[in-house]
């Protein structure tokens, strides 16, 4: 069981409150979490990663156990704390600055 925390606007778009829970078979890379997220909430397709290239949108960040995984390969396996649901996988809107 993967717990995913979405930013405010994506929670509204997906019409969810609080965390999202996904069932994803282990081992679990980042891409598998995103695949499962978009499958359960199709309205999120294209908002976190590009429709065609599947590249992360520039102002989206992925935080994993207090580390920034945004630049990690999306086939990198997530740590056990995320896989077992002890820690959430965070999808974050990057700081706008200004």
């Amino acid at each position: 069981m993967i717990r995913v925390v979405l930013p405010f606007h994506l929670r509204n778009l997906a019409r969810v409150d609080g965390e999202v829970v996904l069932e994803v078979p282990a081992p679990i890379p980042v891409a598998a979490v995103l695949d499962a997220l978009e499958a359960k909430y199709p309205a999120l397709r294209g908002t976190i990663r590009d429709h065609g290239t599947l590249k992360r949108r520039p102002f989206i960040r992925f935080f994993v156990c207090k580390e920034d995984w945004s630049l990690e390969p999306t086939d990198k396996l997530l740590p056990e704390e995320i896989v077992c649901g002890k820690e959430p996988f965070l999808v974050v809107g990057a700081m706008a600055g200004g």
Partner: protein
Amino acid sequence: MSKIRVLVGTKKGAFICTADGTRRNWEISGPHFAGWEMYHLKGSPADPNRIYASQTSGWFGQIIQRSDDGGKTWSTPGSSPEDLKGPEGFPKGESNKFVYEGETGTHMWYDGTQHPWEFKRVWHLEPSLTDPDTAYAGVEDAAIFKTTDGGKTWKELPSLRQAKGHLWQPGAGGMAVHTIIIDPKNPKRIYIAISAAGAFRTDDGGQTWKPINRGLKSQYELPDPDAEVGHCVHRIALHPSRPDVLFMQKHWDIMRSDNAGGEWKEVSGNLPTDFGFPIEVHFHEPETIYVVPITSDSLHYPPDGKLRVYRSKTGGNEWEALTKGLPQKDCYVNVLRDAMAVDTLDECGVYFGTTNGTVYCSPDGGDSWNAIVRDLPGVLSVEVQTLK
């Protein structure tokens, strides 16, 4: 009695203003999609309860929203939770998938090199005049897309970018198809306009397009002031009874064409300045047009701090200032290209929204103005539906 519904897109959400035909007392609903840039909302002429909306964000990209009940509820077509067990199978979530057809190609970049087309957002949505499920989307980087399934999927009409697209160059505001007008007498004829590229027309439903910029002069913007493409067209408008007569607010200059864009002539006449963004036509008087002059390309606010709509009842050249009810001192707002519209009541109403979040209505063709609402986020677009 008829009812008026005004669809307002702002930098931080959408608002829907409704009133009866007197247009005196307004109810405001919103913000819808709070916090998102709402570039444009427009209702289907064939089914006024069907409204398409462009919702965008620098973080999360493009979203297309659709309402089938006049703006009370909204969903992303083909990807909302209620579609999960739909008859068409698992939803693909492609209502926001705008992918250029074939080889992406390149256009002119700021440094003179060629740069690949990159989709950024939908600026303008133009529903079909006859089919609620069909609509066109004008996007940045400049291209036109079409849906025939109510917004679930979009397909580019790619030949537009073959109309010398390699010479198009973005202006400071980007390079977008911001105007789409379907000829009400000939649905295969569509006019579009692109800032810093010009105006274009198709006569075969979008299979082929040609520039229609002859007569435009851009002596301060282009090395060749009479170039075939590259002109910064801000807006085009027409009257449905005479779709061959076009009015244009160019970067500078108010222009008019009497032959479907074949040739343009300037009709700026006695305007205090002919720079501006929107242009509209009175619903019952094809020769009555409206513009909102802005000081200059460097000063995007009205001359002398006075917000004045100008009206010509002669199809241009002779203009009168309309000021009653509009601020006549210390006003430094702008009115963007998609932020002016008219209703179709017997006494034509004219509407516009400002960058400081005020939406004005004139229930008497421009003679007097009242604020429908103030202090919204900056207004990006205004559309009006006249509901019988």
